């Protein structure tokens, strides 16, 4: 069946429908990872967005147990070509079936490179995927333009707290849309991880006397998370060591009076170089963010930049002065992408008191 991708600027791509046949409108973003499509699809940070994969051959190894959350989150999925026959020893099914089962509409067979160039040049924009060939541009364009990502954290966070057992440090993981590998990375280091819904009050978390707090990644514009920011401020004021990733990093900055802004087309992929300013070492990182902390809005007394993006010089991490608080914009938990910055979890362990 034919499908159409209609961009906010009026550009139309014609391709083949994949996954769900329903119509969707969302914010279109691109990801440059060559492997890890399943991790991308199940990363809650994509809630409220439709993802274009720039690598043209998707689904080659099918669906494996490598889900980063319980379900797929993007509103839509845009690819050049889906493999008709996946091959891998862990393959449990095809991506086609997965998209249908997860009710994700998508489009294949379009020139994804041309689409990526539009997004790069004009910036991230909204779009619609439809199978209705009789679409009327004049009608749909205003609808597309009106789309807002909105409060997606509430949509993706867990409903009830739960515990992932361990015999080491007790870590409170604030689930703003956490990828599984954050908890797994902590578990692997022996931590007992208690996962809390995003809107849990700080008092409740702190009452459990955690050894450390982990602020997770998550979707959407950090500034819309006003309630959560207040709770993060309370975490800041406690003396509990904190490690934050992505949205968590942005929320901590906002909780301290800093500012964030939207990047033209974001960083999404597994090849972004970040420099650790304390060692000048460069690490290749996994990234997925559309917003960035404006580090000039935080005074050095509050926090100092700890990581910077080598490509565009944007902030990639902060170290909070006089606090055991460390935040990064990128994803040390990888999945998908390079594992080079996994050592940051070890640093968090040290902040909590080292080996025990």
């Amino acid at each position, binding site marked *: 069946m034919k499908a159409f991708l209609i961009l906010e600027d009026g550009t139309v791509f014609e391709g083949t429908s994949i996954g769900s046949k329903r119509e969707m409108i969302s914010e279109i973003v691109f990801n440059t990872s060559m492997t890890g499509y399943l991790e991308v699809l199940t990363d809650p940070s994509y809630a409220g967005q439709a993802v274009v994969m720039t690598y*043209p051959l998707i689904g*080659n*190894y099918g669906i494996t147990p490598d889900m980063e959350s319980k379900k797929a989150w993007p509103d839509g999925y845009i690819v050049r070509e889906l493999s008709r026959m996946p091959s891998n020893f862990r393959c449990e099914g095809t991506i086609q079936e997965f998209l249908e089962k997860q009710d994700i509409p998508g489009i294949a067979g379009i*020139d994804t490179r041309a689409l990526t160039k539009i997004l790069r040049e004009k910036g991230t924009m909204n779009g619609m995927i439809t199978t209705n060939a009789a679409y009327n541009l004049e009608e749909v364009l205003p609808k597309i333009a009106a789309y807002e990502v909105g409060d997606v954290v509430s949509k993706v966070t867990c409903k009830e707290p739960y515990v992932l057992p361990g015999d080491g440090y007790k870590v409170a993981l604030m689930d703003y849309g956490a990828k599984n590998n954050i908890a797994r990375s902590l578990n692997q280091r022996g931590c007992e991880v208690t996962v809390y819904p995003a809107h849990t009050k700080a008092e409740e978390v702190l009452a459990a006397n955690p050894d450390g707090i982990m602020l997770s990644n998550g979707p959407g514009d950090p500034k819309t998370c006003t309630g959560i920011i207040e709770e993060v401020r309370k975490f800041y004021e406690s003396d509990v060591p904190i490690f934050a990733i992505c949205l968590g990093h942005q929320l901590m900055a906002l909780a301290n009076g800093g500012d964030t802004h939207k990047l033209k087309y974001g960083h999404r*992929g597994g*090849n*972004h170089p970040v420099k650790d300013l304390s060692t000048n*070492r460069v690490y290749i990182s996994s990234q997925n963010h559309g917003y960035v902390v404006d580090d000039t809005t935080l005074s050095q007394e509050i926090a100092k930049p700890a990581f910077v993006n080598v490509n565009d010089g944007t902030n990639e991490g902060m170290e909070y002065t006089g606090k055991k608080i460390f935040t990064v914009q990128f994803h040390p938990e990888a999945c998908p992408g390079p594992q080079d910055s996994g050592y940051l979890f070890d640093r968090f362990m040290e902040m909590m008191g080292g080996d025990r």
Partner: protein
Amino acid sequence: MPRNQDIKKVLVIGSGPIVIGQAAEFDYAGTQACRSLKEEGIEVVLLNSNPATIMTDKDIADRVYIEPLTVEVVEELIRKEKPDSILPTLGGQAGLNLAMELDEAGFLKENNVRLIGTTSETIKKAEDRLEFKATMEKIGEPVAASLVVENVPDGVAFAEEIGYPVVLRPAYTLGGSGGGIAHDREEMVEILENGLRLSRVGQVLVERCIAGWKEIEYEVMRDGNGNCITVCNMENIDPVGVHTGDSIVVAPSQTLGDKEYQMLRTSALNIISELNITGGCNVQYALHPDTFEYCVIEVNPRVSRSSALASKATGYPIAKVAAKIALGYTLDEIKNAITGKTYASFEPMLDYCVVKIPRLPFDKFISAQRTLTTQMKATGEVMSICDNFEGALMKAIRSLEQHVDSLMSYDFSDLSDEELMEKLHIVDDRRIWMIAEALRRGVSYDVLYSITKIDKWFIDKFAIIVEMEKALKDGPLTPELLKEAKRIEFPDHVIASLTGKTEGEIHQMRMDNGIRAAYKMVDTCAAEFAASTPYYYSVFGSENEVEKTSGKKKVLVLGSGPIRIGQGIEFDFCSVHCTWAFKKEGYETIIVNNNPETVSTDFDIADKLYFEPLTPEDVESIVDIEKPDGAVVQFGGQTAIKLTEALMKMGVPIFGTSAENVDAAEDRELFDEILAKCKIPRPTGGTVFTAEEAKKVANELGYPVLVRPSYVLGGQGMQIAINDHDIDEFIGIINRIAQEHPILVDKYLMGKEIEVDAVCDGEDILIPGIMEHIERAGIHSGDSISVYPAQSISAVTKRKIEEYTRRLARALNVIGMINIQFIVCGEEVYVIEVNPRSSRTVPYISKVTGIPIVPLATKVIIGHKIREMGYTPGLQKEAEYIAIKMPVFSFEKIRGADISLGPEMKSTGECLGIAKTFNEALYKAFLGAGIKLPKYKNMIMTVRDEDKPEAVEIGRRFEALGYRIFATAGTAEALKEAGVKAISVNKIEQASPNLLDLILGHEIDLVIDTPPQGADHARDGFTIRRNAIETGVTVLTAMDTAGALVTSLENTNIKELALIDIAKVQ
């Protein structure tokens, strides 16, 4: 870290002659690195024995030494030039081994030369089997169970402990020389003996066989600050068991999930860090297809063939970055030259798929075993880029120029099902075609996988291509079907033949439906950043990205495709120099080529690079977009010449000599007319299509005659026939491939062979020099030792050659290059071949005369005159040096190939000996070719009757040098009669002890074996020659070569070689 200011003068060691396993990729890497060093103001001293390379140009390095790559030469060079550093990681294994020897001997330290880009500890850890294993165990990286052995009994004992099959890998060899898989004790002994002999340190690794696992490679970079990145990973379609150089390879990996991808990536970074590599490194893995288990197969702590491929596949210039790292820069300080915005500290992201296919030489060595093993056999490779795998594969197939253009090109339809299943077990260069045939017959993926271990994902892709063949055959051909066929890159003529239409009709249908090739950019970043480098590949069904460019005149330079015997790196040298010359003249330059190993496909050589097959259809699509003002075909070898007619049809003017005149040189009747008009004699002959016609012509001429197809490379299919039976056989071989052009039959003249390259501007000619072959006519010019200036012809003859060259160039209206081969018998000069194009000898003659022929020819093509460029027309003054070009062979790599020399070219590369005297030059040339005599001072002679008088003289000279001569009965008798001591030995078919026992006894230095002429005898002595080659014995099959060698040996007292800086030759 800013650059180390103590580094001011760097010695770069190249990789020497092209042999299988060490080809043009090192010229590419070395050239890029030298340019990168010069950019930093470093004085570059270059050493490489290979004159056909671009790196040995005075434009590339400040001081250029084309000298043998031996420890003594490097020592002398260091004393002479006093560099402060050596960069050894760009010249392949040859360069690395030399640097190691010097370092181990303490020579570098004594002379205050530091190794940059690596350390000897790093090299030892990576290359010494034991240290490597210990290092991997230390960091917990798995390697297959293995043991380094230094003798056969230890090896057999270990193999029996871990169980057969086992893999054997000799330490410190090129392209896995001498390696293999042994399935039982007998094979074990055979391969191990050979491997121990080939290893520089007499060690062979015996390891657990992991054949059938996925073979995955990572290209990794690391700087002095410890920053690491992976440039790309690659997946071999052929699983472990086939050398990666002989495997079909795809980039990035296709069947690895993120878990496997990152697991191996992290491992590769751990390894490069532990080895403390600063620069580039290649790590090869075997990955179990059904678990996460993996083994590290090998680490190459230097640039390699794979790194050249990775550079071209991603746009990331590994050699350039490695050179900057060697100077002390860190990755985040080095700009990404493709985007101009980002830095070298990132990982390229591909938004396309790359396929590499090896170019195997079985069309040249028809008797050779086609099976592929861990011993590399390919001479070169092609690469293609597309946005889908099927398309990339189809493009790569037709880039091979081996009469293949689809998965139907080898026809196995007459095999029975049983035969087909049997053949599927054979791993050879036609395996994917065999699989395609099996798919056509409905063999299941499971069965194909269980036999071949090729991942089902790839088998499914082959099936998609096979299904398209059927869809096209079944019809009807709708625009949708055509669109889909083009998306997966079916060529128009294949679609035409499947649909019963003409190629023209398919083309028209495409135009009517707007189905045109579009071009996408290789930008290292999947379009995330705007790129400024116009490096393009074609796709169908997408938007075109080529930007309309400048008002400049545009020239299309057609490259020479994959490196093969007969068409090597020298044509890349010519293409690159032509491009640079056009650039200097203000043209916009566009290169089309498909060889990832070459300098011409580096992203900053031409203004635009199209990485595409060199077929008329692919070139036409580029022409449609670019609309060039003209095309140059005379520098890209036969590949480019063959496109002349097609270009004319597209309306693209040919710059330089016109197509009709190219034809006139190849068309026998036209050419005869021209020769007659010019009053130039040629050996008499005729043109034929059938064996009957050929026999008639041959009998009129009288045997022996030379038989060859027209329009061929390197004498392919050329043979000397001595009777009617030979003609039947040779014509049969030639006609296995349908000939569009007639076959030539000429009287065979035994004389001196002379070769000339010249530039003609339409009026005047310029001949840089006359080259003389040491071997008499009958041996292909590419396989002959060539001497400049010619030593044994008279001044009168030289004038005659100059005059004939002038007449021919004028008569053929040559504008640009011409190459002529003559035979001189007494004072009589005959023309045997004319090529109105650049030839194999152009780089060599340019370098030794100091005359930049290619730029001159290019300027002539543009319209300049020889006189106005400051040259006096005619034969130029002879240089003060004698330069000898020596062919280099790779026979030991190709099992079953006959090594005897003849009219068909067999050498893979060449080296140069340059000196003030003939003897010193000859000595250097043999040294450069790796002929190391004597060890035991024992030799074998077995020669045909007509060579006996000469054999006696040569035998006498060897005897005087202290050699013990073993000879077969007839030869021994002739020697004894003339008073030369000879020990008579039984022929191989006679009782033991015979010749073979002697050879296998490992105490023979040299075999001189001249086989009788003619098809009946061609295989006489074959077993002796093969066994000798495979046990490392030098074998000569022409008396002239033997004479030259003995001359060289008589002069080995030349201890102190004088090194000559080519950059100063005027």
